[in-house]
């Protein structure tokens, strides 16, 4: 699909279908890197495309490829979901993706979820960092700021920023290696 056609996904079913088929697998993989429940993943996949239809008119091809734009939407959708209260979760969705799942679909979604386990642990590990450490890590790693700039941004001393960054990295390294180790460690421990 031509990127300039993207706004038409909002009202042209053929254009929408081309767009959907091109991206549905990537969206599902994106979602399961963040959630591990097949039913919720199905709901969120539906939500992402609904949100894309709603936002299609604001797409500008000179600002990025459709896939990047769609991932931006997916992030918002998934993040919003994590902030919903239990009551909100029961609110009616426009399309309940989970109702469209059948047994085989659940198995396939579960395959995706299993394949994304490591990515989910990385996200989870970052989210468990203390606020101050996470802020430093994100500004350095995602926003590409220097440690000195981060200190200015956060109103902390440069040495504090450096220490937090060091701690955050160490924590992540430890958590991720802990999570990766059981499959390796258990057989060795079990050996006589």
């Amino acid at each position, binding site marked *: 699909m031509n990127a300039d056609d993207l*706004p038409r996904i909002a009202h042209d079913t053929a254009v929408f279908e081309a767009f959907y088929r091109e991206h549905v697998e990537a969206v599902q993989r994106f979602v399961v890197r*963040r959630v591990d429940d097949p039913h919720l993943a199905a709901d969120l996949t539906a939500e992402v495309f609904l949100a894309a239809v709603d936002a299609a008119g604001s797409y500008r091809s000179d*600002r990025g490829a459709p896939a*990047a734009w769609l991932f931006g939407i997916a992030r918002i959708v998934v993040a919003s979901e994590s902030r919903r209260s239990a009551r909100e979760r029961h609110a009616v969705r426009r399309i309940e993706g989970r109702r469209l799942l059948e047994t085989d679909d659940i198995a396939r979604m579960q395959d995706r979820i299993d394949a994304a386990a490591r990515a989910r642990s990385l996200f989870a590990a970052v989210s468990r960092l203390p606020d101050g450490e*996470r802020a430093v890590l994100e*500004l350095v790693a*995602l*926003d590409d700021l220097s440690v000195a700039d981060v200190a200015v941004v956060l109103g902390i001393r440069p040495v504090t920023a450096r220490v937090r960054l060091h701690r955050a990295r160490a924590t992540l390294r430890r958590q991720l290696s802990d999570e990766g180790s059981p499959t390796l460690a258990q057989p060795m421990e079990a050996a006589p």
Partner: protein
Amino acid sequence: MTMTDPSTQARFEDRLLERLQAVVAQSPAPSPSAVGARPAVPRRARRLALSGAGLATAAAVATAVLASGGGTSAAYAVQSTPAGLVTVRINDLRDARGLQAKLRAAGVPAVVDYVAHPPTCTAGAPGGPGAGAAVAGATTGGGPSTTVGGGPERGTSRSSAGGPPPADAGKLTMTTSMAADGSATFTVDPDSIEQGSRVLIASSSGTVDSLAIAVVRAGHDASALPCVPPPPGR
């Protein structure tokens, strides 16, 4: 990644496609004159932006979400007024670091992030302590992580279509407006920003119409910018 025989694909995906196409089919096509023009979308876009504003202002006293679009050649312009205010006009989400540097040079402790999604919006384990803390202050009010400049009695939040900045600049933290050409403009009084606070400018979806601006007080998580807007239909 999925160990799936392609021939067995197309179940959930096809059913979902069918449902989505029903939604698309119900959307009226834009009138020919509106095709390609900026206002072709706005009804929904505005709803997104407004619901975002509600979210953000829940905790962010001086947060404003701009609804606009389009763009012109210069990505941004920063001006200091004789009264000591700093006016920023954003036409296009390019050169975040350049704008950040300019704002800081003008006395505004800015953090500009045009990445299409605040990093802390990422869902970790839902309800997990970290995930909640990252956005709690800006959204649910359940946590103290983000507080915004001044307090209810000090901050103002505006989102208007091209109107002039309000006159109550004495208490003003910032104002925003949307120009007819789709650029977003906001005015900040650097003196109204507490020592150590940061002014965050971020986009939730990578377009000018999703810009969010907030003041975050010293010591709070600068990356916990309002995660707006939520998907529509809620």
